[in-house]
Each structure stands twice: as structure tokens, then as C-alpha cells.
């Protein structure tokens, strides 16, 4: 069976500076992977390269989503193909009500996949269900996307978008940072609801705390733009003890 995400010897640069240095990663459908690693090791860069952010250029290697070469697809095509990135720093879209944004995004994806658009009443119903799981006030969804949201509220809103769009591959870039302990629980339960045999989840995090709630199948350590160690969920616990000191030298 083809892997959901297959990254082979991926090298990528930003503004002429190489950040990813031969990245290898395979995520199969049904798996949850955690990526940990020191600041500046290129975790966010990986998520941007996969989602096609302008300025992030692949110089070597390949990244395949369900067998399809991501580098051949536009940003929105990747999204429609099922790639979702929960941003480390979600952006604000002034003047655009969150509900409007959700409708536009969902229906754009559906249209690209040749599916029927979701009607407004169905959409509102679905969003209400999700908001309830995430303990979010519907009033917030009338406000412009992320504008004036607190850090934690933004992360919740990202999770809500992800749950509505039901992507094949979810990449969560430090979705736990900025969340208080109760928020961490509700967001984790939302993510856990998305766990399924058809879906892959990649969680980028600095803390074991999140992995207490979202139990990973595989844990990777990333350093200086590539994966330097892979293990089971106990690897995260070990890191909590030792930090990254061992890996920084390894990567150098």
C-alpha cells in the first residue's frame, strides 16, 4: 500500500539558505507521528515546504501525498488533496467572518474534488457540533478570522477548521503552545476524534504534555533539518529527561 506521506531525501531552502538537509519520513494512514526538536531545527519549515508556501523551495528529493508529487501541485490543490496545516502562528483575515471563511474553504475544496457544496444549514449544524466539542462560543465565529483572538483561541479555531475540513493528513505545528490546561484537553480530544484508519496525523511539539493526551505511534527527533532518531512513544519521555543536547552534536 502507498504511504499517506512519503518524504525522501528532501532538501529545501529559504532565501538561498538550506534548511532541510535530506529529510526522510514515512507516515502511513492510521498513524500518529510526533516530531520534536530544538528551536530552529526546521520543523515549521518542513510544514511549509509540504504545504507549498511561496519562498520555500525544494532543491532535491521528493515529497509524495498518497503517491502524488506535492511539488507539482499548487497550495490549494494540496489542500483539496487532503493536506491540512494547523499553523504555529495562525494569520488574521480582517473583515472576513470566520463562518464565511469556513464556508468558502470547505466548498472550495469540495468543488475541486468534484463533490457537491455543503448547504449553509448543514454547515452551521456541523460547525456547531465541532464548536461544542472544542468548547467554543459560536459568537466567536461571527468575528473576523482570528482577529482579536487570544493565542489559545487561535489554536482552538485552527483545530475547528481542521475538524470541519476532515483532511487526510493533518500537520499540527505546536498547536499546544499557548493553550491552558483545559484547552489542551479539549483540543486533544478534538484531534483524537480525527484519528482514523484512513487519516495520518503529524504533531510537531516541544512537550510531552500534549503526547499525554494524543498518544503517538511514532516519535521522531529532528535536528538541523533532518530526522536524527525515531522511536516509540517512550522516546518523548526520554527527551523530556535529557533534552536535545545529544542530538545537536549528532547533526553537526
Amino acid at each position, binding site marked *: 500500500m502507498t504511504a499517506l506521506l512519503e518524504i525522501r531525501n528532501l532538501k529545501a531552502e529559504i532565501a538561498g539558505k538550506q534548511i532541510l538537509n535530506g529529510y526522510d519520513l514515512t507516515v502511513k494512514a492510521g498513524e500518529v507521528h510526533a516530531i520534536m526538536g530544538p528551536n530552529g531545527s526546521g520543523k515549521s519549515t518542513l510544514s511549509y515546504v509540504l504545504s507549498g508556501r511561496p519562498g520555500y523551495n525544494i532543491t532535491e528529493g521528493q515529497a509524495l501525498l498518497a503517491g502524488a508529487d506535492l511539488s507539482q501541485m*499548487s497550495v490549494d490543490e*494540496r489542500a483539496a488533496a487532503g493536506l*491540512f496545516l494547523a*499553523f504555529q502562528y495562525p*494569520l488574521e483575515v480582517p473583515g*472576513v467572518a470566520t463562518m464565511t*471563511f469556513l464556508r*468558502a*474553504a470547505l466548498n472550495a475544496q469540495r468543488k475541486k474534488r468534484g463533490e457537491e457544496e455543503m448547504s449553509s444549514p448543514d454547515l452551521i449544524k456541523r460547525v456547531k457540533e465541532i464548536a461544542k466539542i472544542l468548547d467554543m462560543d459560536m459568537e466567536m465565529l461571527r468575528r473576523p478570522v482570528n482577529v482579536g483572538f487570544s493565542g489559545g483561541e487561535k489554536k482552538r479555531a485552527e483545530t475547528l477548521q481542521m475538524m470541519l*475540513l476532515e483532511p487526510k493528513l493533518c500537520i499540527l505545528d505546536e498547536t499546544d503552545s499557548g493553550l491552558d490546561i483545559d484547552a489542551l484537553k479539549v483540543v486533544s480530544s478534538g484531534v483524537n476524534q480525527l484519528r482514523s484508519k484512513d487519516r495520518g496525523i503529524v504533531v510537531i511539539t516541544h512537550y510531552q504534555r500534549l503526547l499525554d493526551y494524543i498518544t503517538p505511534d511514532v516519535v521522531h527527533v529532528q535536528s538541523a533539518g533532518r530526522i536524527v532518531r525515531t522511536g516509540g512513544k517512550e522516546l518523548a519521555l526520554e527527551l523530556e529527561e535529557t533534552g536535545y543536547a545529544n542530538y545537536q552534536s549528532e547533526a553537526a
Partner: protein
Amino acid sequence: MAAVQETVEQVRRVGADQYKYGFVTDIESDLAPKGLSEEVIRFISAKKSEPEWMLEWRLEAYRRWLTMTEPNWARVEYPAIDYQDLYYYAAPKSTAGPKSLDEVDPELLRTYEKLGIPLHEREILAGVERPEGEARPRVAVDAVFDSVSVATTFKEELKKAGVIFCPISEALREHPELVRKYLGTVVPTSDNFFATLNSAVFSDGSFVYIPPGVRCPMELSTYFRINEKNTGQFERTLIIADRGSYVSYLEGCTAPKRDENQLHAAVVELVALDDAEIKYSTVQNWYPGDENGKGGIYNFVTKRGDCRGANSKISWTQVETGSAITWKYPSCVLRGENSRGEFYSIAISNGRQQVDSGTKMIHLGKGTTSRIISKGISAGHSSNAYRGLVSAHRKAEGARNFTNCDSLLIGDACSAHTIPYIEAKNQSCVFEHEATTSKISEDVLFYCMQRGLSQEDATALVVNGFVRDVLQQLPMEFAVEAQKLISVSLEGSVG
């Protein structure tokens, strides 16, 4: 266009046999000779069976116009207009019209399709001429645009309310005292080059009178009223809201029109008496020309509202996406005590379009207030200037203005300019001005696209967010249309 659509259907049902009331056939068979002269003006006035004073009024304007020179202070450039090479009355467009949609610019048709306009409507808008035998679409055109048949539909209700809503040529015959009392009192015949020209040669336009204390029972729209095919070029509109009355007036149709008149010089005059309110909304989407700017419309329009009475209010809301060149400054003269003027504007330029637009708020009375919200969006190789004047007269004790001008740039080849003028002759007035210019954020676009929106849809969404404050001022159906229109006019603005 839900409401408009409905009306179109309604009109179509009543339309066919009322067609005989229209003046369409007359106009098509009559032509003034090319060029401008006293004879041509006499011809126009005679054709419309105007009273003597009206002819004099026109001639005076014409003589005045001969002494004037075309203004050149706006940030627009265009080849010189040969005023002797134009028809000032009923240009023979029927001979030049395409015979079928195959002959119409495919770009234009694609736009209609995007706007969701049904096929036969597209033909009408594109000016397709049907041979004699195929009468149906012709009748539909006339039914849609002709005043009399539509008036039939709404006449009863308006009449009950005492509202007068008719072509200005008809008002000159039926209500000469009203027209004479107000015409040219807001925009004098000597006002400016284009307004003076309009005064001399205007062919038709709308006349509205709302009697004291009446709230006009429906939104009035030119779309329902006028056979614009022949009268669009030098349109003249006069709206009077008598004491304590209210009217909301919508100008224009949201579908771009094929139009062979390169030059448009309209005049709109609004008069609000004590405690009256006029809300004037425009969605303008004329042909902007091809990507090189060729063939588009030059829109030089003078729009002015006079808050003549105490506590009166006039608000202009406009969405401008069309024309090759736009030169337009809807203004308010705040004469009445505590009167209020508002200007909400969205001006989008793309391709080679040039827009020089803005407003003037002239505070004359005590306690007058005004508010200006302008959102300019430039894309492609266009240039978009906001030019605004806020002035306070000596007697304008306690006048206040708030101005907010935001410009959004899409791409590197366009430009935006904000040119505010402030003149305060009274110490007690408070004028606030805020302005921002920003480039559309690549990061925000990326964020939207990561959620599945195409680059064009993402751009349109961000732009719609940018103009939200102004969109909210538009009547509901108009706002929805305007939103769609914004997406269409931004097409091709992103690489």
C-alpha cells in the same frame, strides 16, 4: 440580483403589450446631426417638447461651455476628446450592434457568465440586435428598461404615497414648476466643464420627488426605469426629498454594459429639505476596456447633494469597478443646521484603469457632521487616487468630520494616491483624517489557500474583508451582487 431578477420577470410578464407606451422607436428613427451647436440644442429641446425657459437654460449653459477649458488636474490621462465628433442625440447604435452573441467580445460574455446572468439577459446587455421576426428579446429589453411599463407595475403604490418617479423629460412636461425650482440649484450650469456640457445637451435621466413626511415605500432604481441604451451618455438626475421624507435610490446595474459611448458626463443633483434623508447607492461596472485600456468608457460625472434643510442627511455609497477612466466626486453641501453627509466608497481598478475619485464635504451650517470611508483597491497596472476635500465655512460652528482612507495594492505595477484637502475657517471644528496604504499580504493569501481557496478566490475574500465597512452600507441584494462583482473585477490581478 435576486430582487432585480424577480422584477425583471415581473416586468416581462406585464411588458409585452405595454411596449407601445415606450418612446424607443421614436428615438431610434431620430438623429441630431453630429457635433455640437445651438441648432443641435434647439433640436434636442424641441424633440422633447420642452418649455421655452428650458431651452434658454440649455443655451446659456452651451454659451458658457464654449468659454471653458477641459480640466486637467485629475490623475488621469486620455486622448483628447473631439466634441464635434460625437452625436448628442440618439446615436445610431442599432446599426452597429452585433447580430448575435458570436460577435460579442468573449471576455465580456465570460464576465456575464460569472455573474450568473441568464443567456437572454446577456444578449440584452451586450446589445445584440435581433432581426425583425424575432421580437421576443427586443420586447424584453424595452420592458426591462422602459420607464412606462415598469412604472405600471409600481405606479399604483408610488402614486398612493405621492411619490413622483419618472424620466426627467416627462417631469419637465408634467411638473415643470418642480423641475424649474430645483434644477441647477445644486450643480449650477457654470459648475465645471463636464457639468456645463451636460446642462446644454442632457438627453434624459430620472426625476424623483418625495412629498413631506413620506417614506418612499420601495427602493427606487434606474435599472427599472430607463432605456439607458440611448440616454446614458449625458444623464441628468434630480432627486428632491421634501421635509421629513426618506428615499433610497439605487443607480446602475451590476452587469457590465457594452456601450459605444466613450464619453459619459452625467449630473446628479440631490436636495434634502428639513429632516429629510436621501441614500444614494451606485454600483458601477462599465466596460473598462481591454487589457491595454482600449475601448473603455470615460466616466466624468458630477454628483452633488445639498443638505438644504436642518437635520437633513445625504449619504453616498458607491462601488466602482468599471470604466477606463473615472473622474467622480460625489459631494455634500451641508447647509442646514446639524445636517449630515456621508460618503462610503469602494473603488477597484485593474488592468490599465485610471480612477480619480473621492468626495467633498462642504460644511456651511452649524453643527454639521460628515463621515468619509474610502477603500481603494489597485491591481494590475492601474492607478487609483482618492481626492477629498473637507471644508468648513466661518459659520460652521462645531462642524465635525471623520475621514478614513485605506488603499490596498495587489501586485507591484499599480499605484495608489491619497490627496486630502482640508480647509477650516472656523476654530471650533474638528476634522479627523486617517489613511493607510498596504500591500495585500502574501502570508494571509497563503493561509487562505492552505484552506483550499484558489489564489483568485483568496484575493477576492481578502478584498471583500477589506471593504466590509462599506459593503455593509449597501442594500442587501446590492451588497451580495457587489461582492460577486469584486471577484470578477479582480480577475487576472494575480500572477
